[in-house]
């Protein structure tokens, strides 16, 4: 009996490892590695089948990774650093393109299909995907930080949606004092120790005419102070903001327990769906600014690139051309809610009818700024995250945090540049 089980087990193992891809000699198998998309995954599969029909002899095999950015970065770097990677086309977070290009892991896309022209896309992601004058990745979908607000609550007190941080503070104070609802908070954002916190910080500092690793020190410090004061002085953000990520803030805001929220556009359709307590009561505006400056959203989103050593360079480019074509982007926007990277789509009436929110998002995407465009971005961000988190939970003051972050930047960048020069063959 036991022996039979073992036999069965061995057989199933062997059976499971039989690859079913034994392709006919003429066909090229493209492996497309990407993070899982939200919504129905059959949508993308259908698109890939359509690509195969248009390109006879090419088969696309999808390999899906968890959508967690960290896990994808781990998978890609492990594979690409270890020689010929087992995939041809990959999707990249906007902050990785420089890094991957510099490491020589992805191929420059000089001979793209003529349908891809840089000027058709939003400038932010194109800038982030250009390294050494060449384009290394094509924007697939775009993201940018926005401010959600409770239209109904602001209207109740005859308030306009805030354009500056002081206006936001005033509005939050007024509404909180008047509502006297202990479960209502003023402003939620991402304060956990992770990349999201860096995005929020960049938005606050840039809307004060400075930046995190560069720019005017006093104004940067002022921005950091503001971030900390939101929790500790103005008390319009709860203490729990120190562990908040995108989804926990979305859930809180979605329960009608917050007046303002900084988040990505993904939250919109979830907040507006049937049964949501805030359905029809919310609005979206650009990130506020300090008086005298204009608000700047941090750019997010994903791009498509070709692995450097892929033997199917041409087919891979065709696939990227197909996936970023207006037609496919339109369908991904309509059916999955992904924001297109092509500017022209935001002017189409059918699109705007189906997705009125695109009218609000368009100017935000157009002016969104990438995070520092450098191959060393992750190094910088990783070093800054603990400092920023300590700021939010009140264990470090803004001056020390700024000094530490700037020191890391000043120390890391020249040192790394030198190491890089030494390492060049």
């Amino acid at each position, binding site marked *: 009996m036991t022996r039979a089980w073992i036999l069965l087990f061995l057989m199933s193992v062997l059976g*499971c490892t039989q690859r079913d891809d034994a392709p006919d000699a003429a066909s090229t198998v493209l492996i497309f590695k990407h993070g899982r998309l939200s919504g129905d995954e059959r949508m993308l599969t259908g698109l890939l089948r359509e690509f195969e029909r248009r390109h006879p002899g090419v088969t696309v095999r999808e390999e*899906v990774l968890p959508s967690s950015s960290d896990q994808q970065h781990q998978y890609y770097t492990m594979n690409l650093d270890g020689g010929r990677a087992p995939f041809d086309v990959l999707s990249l977070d906007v902050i990785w393109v420089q890094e991957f290009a510099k490491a020589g892991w992805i191929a420059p896309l000089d001979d793209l299909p003529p349908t891809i022209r840089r000027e058709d896309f939003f400038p932010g992601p194109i800038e982030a995907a250009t390294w050494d004058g060449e384009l290394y990745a094509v924007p697939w979908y775009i993201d940018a930080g926005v401010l959600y607000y409770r239209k109904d609550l602001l209207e109740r007190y005859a308030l306009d949606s805030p354009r500056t941080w002081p206006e936001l503070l005033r509005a939050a104070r007024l509404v909180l004092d008047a509502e006297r609802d202990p479960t209502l908070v003023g402003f939620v954002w991402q304060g956990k120790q992770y990349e999201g916190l860096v995005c929020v910080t960049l938005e606050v500092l840039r809307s004060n005419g400075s930046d995190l690793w560069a720019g005017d020190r006093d104004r940067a410090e002022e921005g950091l102070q503001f971030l900390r004061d939101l929790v500790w002085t103005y008390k319009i953000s709860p203490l729990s903001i120190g562990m908040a990520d995108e989804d926990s803030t979305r859930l809180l805001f979605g329960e009608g327990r917050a007046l303002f929220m900084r988040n990505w556009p993904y939250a919109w359709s979830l907040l507006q769906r049937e049964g949501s307590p805030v359905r029809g009561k919310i609005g979206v505006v650009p990130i506020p600014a300090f008086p005298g400056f204009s608000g700047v959203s941090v750019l997010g989103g994903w791009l498509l690139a070709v692995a450097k050593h892929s033997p199917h360079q041409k087919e891979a480019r065709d696939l990227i051309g197909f996936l970023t074509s207006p037609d496919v982007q339109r369908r991904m926007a309509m059916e999955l809610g992904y924001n297109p990277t092509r500017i022209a789509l935001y002017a189409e009436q059918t699109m705007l009818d189906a997705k009125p929110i695109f009218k609000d998002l368009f100017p935000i995407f157009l002016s969104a700024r990438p995070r520092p465009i450098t191959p060393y971005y992750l190094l910088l961000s990783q070093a800054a995250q603990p400092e920023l988190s300590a700021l939010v939970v009140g264990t470090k003051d803004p001056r020390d945090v700024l000094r530490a972050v700037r020191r890391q930047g000043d120390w890391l960048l020249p040192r790394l540049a030198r190491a890089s020069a030494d390492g060049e063959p």
Partner: protein
Amino acid sequence: MNRELACRDHWAGWNVAAAGRNVCLLVVVAMFCLGPLGWQILASVKPDEELVRLPPLVPTRLTAAHYERVLFHSSLVQALINSAVVATGTTVLALMLGSCCAFALARLPIRGRPMILGAILMASMFPPIAIISPLYLTMREMGLRDSLIALGLAHTVHALPLTIWLLTVAFRQLPRELYHAARVDGCTPLKALLTVVLPPARPGLAVAGLLTFIHSWNEFMFALTLTASDTARTAPVAIALFPGLHDIPWGDLAAASIIVTLPVAGLAAFFSRHLIGGLTAGSVKG
């Protein structure tokens, strides 16, 4: 021998006070162990809009939507089969190799025993995140990427140290005469191991097997790296595919966690008989 007698003695000592105390303790244990999971069960049948509302503690209406999505609209079922294959294979292999090795270490006159035990322990002491890269690249070179074999082997290696150490101790606790008598009777060491050593060591084997199975069933880092498609992906990785870039489907996750935990709980129930069964066998020879 006098098992029944001993049992009867024991029953005599089983009085109301002890029973009451044990029941109280048990309630505490059950709350500690099952409380968080009970919350998961509730979450798995709550409609989405009630997930982040508290009170009410108990959902106002029940829904099977999460289970339906998880079972019929995700790759979890295929992944559960993969997990079962990998975990079973790992357990069988680890017990086979582990009991041989442990037996040699416990009872046979080999040299370098501390070194062997040390080397085996070392293998499980190095943080997996640092060896995953070289291991994966080797597997890739050998063409074992995205296969259950690679994953099973990796899990076996990481389960072996515990198995070997646990069984070494278990074998040592058996009376030495057991083995010697078998040898004098003309058994080879292999036959002696199978016939007289393994049966009374059943509690140890059951625990080692159960722990190995659970380890393999739940392991994430190796599974994430070594598998790539539905054909080889195991349950924890399939669950890691549920969340979108920012949105986490809490209800689906809760349902999936129940579905993934149930088989293991069932297995534990099955193994628990052997835990007790071993006692009987041990007492006969003790």
